[in-house]
């Protein structure tokens, strides 16, 4: 648990960050909270000769709610998400999710940007961002560009971000309707055995819109359009939920690990999604 030697940088401007990235290519990595990267370095599973700490860059820690649009800076911590009343009022699923990530000590350091950018299938924010149809905002040598969260993840730890790009924020429209983030884990600090992010809008007792994403059930987060479609236009009755679960099961591809065999994970994924839809739907009706 002793990392290999590395150079540590703490630049104060994004231009400096990008310059270091350009100079060292994939020998350089930016670090936000460090709660994924540092353990990987200590295990010597990640070799990072040039480590760039983003802590000194201004303007990456803001939560802004402008009209219908919410933007979270890359350095916003999980704790910030939990503690922000305006955000919780506008998009309560963020607080519900963040409360299920690790423990308070980790949440004080762990960031939205790190969680989204790393491409670890166990992280909760990627699935959530897909559920919310978020946009991932990057800056690189050629300026800024945006990638839809639903297009961002290619395989485990592989994303649409180029080596010389930095994730600076994520943004999404204020979600409407009811929400739920349901997660089964073995213990505090563990990744999900299965987790589901659900947003549902209710129009006169009928599902007007729905979005469903699953976490740690494939090598990337799984946004299941078919599962959502199975709900839309229904009264979210038991048959509709069953259809949504069946559709979701067609999209996930879990693998066996210490959390259990594939059959168990698929079963639990169905149970977790059923519970998430039920809770999200109950929240719409209670608001209507």
């Amino acid at each position, binding site marked *: *648990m*002793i990392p*290999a*030697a590395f150079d540590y940088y703490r630049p104060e401007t994004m231009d400096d960050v990008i310059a270091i990235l350009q100079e060292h290519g994939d020998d350089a990595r930016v670090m936000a909270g460090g709660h994924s990267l540092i353990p990987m370095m200590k*295990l*010597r599973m990640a070799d990072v000769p040039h480590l760039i700490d983003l802590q000194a860059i201004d303007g990456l820690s803001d939560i802004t709610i402008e009209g219908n649009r919410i933007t979270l800076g890359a350095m916003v911590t999980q704790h910030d998400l939990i503690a922000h009343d305006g955000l919780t009022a506008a998009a309560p699923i963020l607080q519900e999710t963040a409360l299920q990530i690790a*423990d308070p000590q980790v949440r004080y350091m762990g960031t939205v940007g790190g969680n989204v950018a790393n491409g670890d299938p166990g992280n909760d924010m990627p699935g959530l961002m897909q559920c919310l149809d978020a946009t991932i905002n990057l800056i690189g040598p050629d300026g800024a560009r945006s990638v839809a969260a639903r297009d961002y993840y290619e395989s485990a730890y592989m994303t649409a971000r180029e080596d010389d790009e930095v994730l600076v924020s994520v943004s999404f429209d204020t979600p409407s309707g009811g929400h739920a983030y349901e997660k*089964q884990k*073995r*213990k*505090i*600090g*563990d*990744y999900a*055995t299965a987790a589901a992010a659900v947003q549902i809008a209710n129009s006169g007792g009928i599902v007007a819109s729905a979005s469903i994403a699953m976490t740690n059930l494939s090598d990337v987060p799984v946004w299941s359009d078919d599962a959502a479609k199975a709900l839309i236009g229904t009264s979210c009755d038991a048959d509709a939920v069953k259809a949504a679960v069946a559709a979701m099961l067609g999209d996930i591809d879990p693998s066996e690990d*210490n*959390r*259990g*065999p594939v*059959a*168990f994970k698929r*079963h*639990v994924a169905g*149970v*977790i999604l059923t519970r998430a839809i039920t809770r999200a739907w109950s929240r719409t009706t209670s608001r209507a």
Partner: protein
Amino acid sequence: MNDMTPDREERSANLKGMGCSRKRVEDARFTQGKGNYVDDIKLPGMLHGDFVRSPYAHAKVVSVNKEAALALPGVVAVLTAEDLAPLNLHWMPTLAGDKQMVLADGKVLFQGQEVAFVVASDRYIAADAVELVEVEYEELPVITDPFESLKSDVVLRPDLDGQTEGAHGPRKHHNHIFTWEQGDEAGTNQVLDNAEVVAEETMYYHRTHPCPLETCGSVASMDKVNGKLTLWGTFQAPHVVRTVASLLSGIEEHNIRVVSPDIGGGFGNKVGVYPGYVCSIVASIVTGVPVKWVEDRMENLMSTAFARDYHMTGKISATKEGKITGLHCHVTADHGGFDACADPTKFPAGFMNICTGSYDIPVAYLAVDGVYTNKAPGGVSYRCSFRVTEAVYFIERMIEVLAIELDMDAAELRRINFIKKEQFPYTAALGWEYDSGDYHTAWDKALKTVDYDGLRKEQAERVEAFKRGETRKLMGIGLTFFTEIVGAGPVKNCDILGMGMFDSCEIRIHPTGSAIARLGTISQGQGHATTFAQILASEIGISADSITIEEGDTDTAPYGLGTYGSRSTPVAGAATAMAGRKIRAKAQMIAAYLLEVHDDDVEFDIDRFVVKGAPEKFKTMKEIAYAAYNQAIPGIEPGLEAVSYYDPPNMTYPFGAYVCVMDIDVDTGVPEIRRFYALDDCGTRINPMIIEGQIHGGLTEALAVALGQEIAYDDIGNVKTGTLMDFFLPTAWEVPNYETDYTVTPSPHHPIGAKGVGESPHVGGVPCFSNAVQDAFRAFGLRHTNMPHDHWRIWQTANKLGLHE
């Protein structure tokens, strides 16, 4: 003596003696980060060691190339077996009578085995150099299953080739270590063959690990000028380490000083001797400067002593009415690559022969076969006396299985088979003499407190509701009644490498009436500095606040066998009381002299000696202490000191009654602990607050083991649970509220009647949590399923029973 007048009450309270919940004196430094652990030790010029470890579970070591590592600036040495061989330190004896490689001698037997020891000026450089040591391996077939091992042609230990006799009798196969038999085989078989009812079950008590928060480590400092070796380390038995170090190194024992500083939890993990200790010593001898070695978490989980890994097969017979008539137990014990179990030398399977439990079983037979595999060595007593948790889990599962066989209530089945109060001292079928017990009183109190009948009624209603589809949660009621055997132990049958398992205490009373007491034990969090001072306060009439307790430095402490197996209070606690009584006897003579009466005319009263019948004439212990140093008393030597080496006449037998109520989500496999009630009888209670803390800690480690904590290997011997992501260490989040309760049945042979408590909750807790899970499925036909009961295994149980259809 007279009634407790306000004055006497106040004097008694000021002592902070036995029975009071004195706050822990250790906690001020621990809670403020002022502890002094091995890794806090920094000496001038100190070097740092790190291991090259085998990535393979079984391989030939073809070559080790040190060149690149030695070329790295800051690297001082790279040691291999070849370097240690001239000193004859490439192998070391184990506590179990086997030998173990210090560094790989031609082959490796488990993943994570120590291959080379790098010594560098800096911890980071040492880690970098480890990567630069080039080791060529040639992979060999891997055996991770002990049954397969006993059938395999693969010889795991060619160094033992041709040795048909091991440390514990004949070896039946080249991968077999020992067979240990206890009891009456023919008699047991006869009873089983003719029994009205026989229940049989096979169970696996999985491999796990004590995982103390502080990992293992040592700092060795060889002073070449005076020839003295000082060794600081995470040692649960520092004196034994000194003796072993002397025997191994040839350094005379008076030239070795072993110090256990603060230890961050041991739980059995720090009883044995590890290659890291030996390598730090050798490296210091070679370099002439201090060398530190501290393992990381992964190294701790992969290579230092594991616990359990017992495959157990039981047969229990009974009459139709449920009276148990006989018990048969066979164990196949997976010891890994070397037999490094930490048991008293004559007990290769520890006290597994306590497996008749709390029950009056007329005849029994136990056989344990130890087997080599390609797994890490160990087999330590993780928060239990030697193999006692295996024994209690075995009998408490067999009782449940017998209850199913008899279609009987498991609480009632226990009750009708308990050893009765009037039967103590009771000699069990496998030989132990239980010193005392009152099981029926404890059991009845437990069942009444939890409203056992009400719980069973609720459970039956839940089963009906489940069948009607109204709920997906089942309710389990876990029962356990355990008897521990702790306080090893009588020198006549307990020793470690020939050292009798007595323990010791030495007391010095200072002229102004305060004191220091030193013991042969060493606290790893148990609170010895608090509780031993309380024992002494009650014995010698000096406030616990005025008594320093010191342990762990072999240059100052009297010889003792250390702290594990709940032996500190039963053995060293007894030595403390006995040494205190010697102090008191001398104080009585001094008091009589000062009061100008005959010795027999004064008597002890809380903190003083008073003249019988004239309590206004007295000398306090403070006055007596001063007199011992400031005046000549005819016929009495100056000073006030005593030492006691205590050889206990018997073990102690704490017991307890536990009940766990659990709700299990059949669809996700998630268990929710609704209630946990623990009644413990540890005899005389020294500090109720510390007892409660010990029970909370032991139950939490029991919950861990029962519900998910394991060291798992894949088919080629890779450790699958090498980090705390996968190795379950519960936090406050996973832990339920515990209700604690007690009865008091003092040990008749212990000077203060105490029995030890640190391990009871673990021993009782594991079967109780497990029984709760299994009981939830009893109505649906489950007989037995193995731990750990993590989510997927519980789900699988439900799935196999058809509960997901």
